[in-house]
């Protein structure tokens, strides 16, 4: 069963995607969602260097994609 989610892009991912969010359909886990989007947009960062958050909280890559949720891929941070 396919789920539709809003994906948020930040920093270099936003520059590469050319947008700060998009609606996407997915039927796997969050890891495979990132891999598909990486192939589509040519993201330089491999999944191992990112974290993933759903609805504003960090979650595991093997969590299923939940319909209607907001997914953010978090590149290595550089605040401070």
């Amino acid at each position, binding site marked *: 069963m396919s789920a539709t989610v809003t994906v*948020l892009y*930040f*920093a*270099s991912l936003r*520059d590469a995607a050319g947008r700060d969010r998009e609606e996407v359909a997915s039927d796997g886990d969050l890891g495979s969602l990132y891999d598909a989007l990486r192939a589509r947009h040519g993201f330089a*960062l491999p999944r191992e*260097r990112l974290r993933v*958050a759903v609805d*504003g*909280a*960090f979650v595991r890559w093997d969590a299923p994609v939940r319909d209607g949720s907001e997914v*953010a891929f*978090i*590149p*290595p*941070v*550089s*605040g*401070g």
Partner: protein
Amino acid sequence: MRRFRIADAPFDVAPLRAQLLDERAGAYASFEGWVRNHHAGRAVGGLRYEAYLELAEREGGRILDEARSRFAITDARCVHRVGDLALGELAVWVGVGAAHRDAAFGACRWIIDEVKAHVPIWKHERYADGDAQWLHPDGPR
């Protein structure tokens, strides 16, 4: 009163420090990050910080709560700027009050390290040579 806050415009540290005044506190340590004119050997012209606001505020709040349980402090605050910053501008401020200086220094250092390592904020540097880039550092800095 939120202990961690993202600011999208310049902010003054005096009222933040005042929130930590407490007659039990004999020590106050603070840290500020300022926009430096060089990074990794390159001349920097200015920078931009971007945050995932919702998650940044949640993570920042968690870090300050954890500091209060790890260290014998009276309280702590942190504010991080986003948006365009010029050379010399204040990027981040941390303030800690404690009965004694060991805890004040220890917590202040721990908070800035944790914020830099975990809060979803990204720095985009513009260089004097016209180049610019997002910083996505490898592992612990």
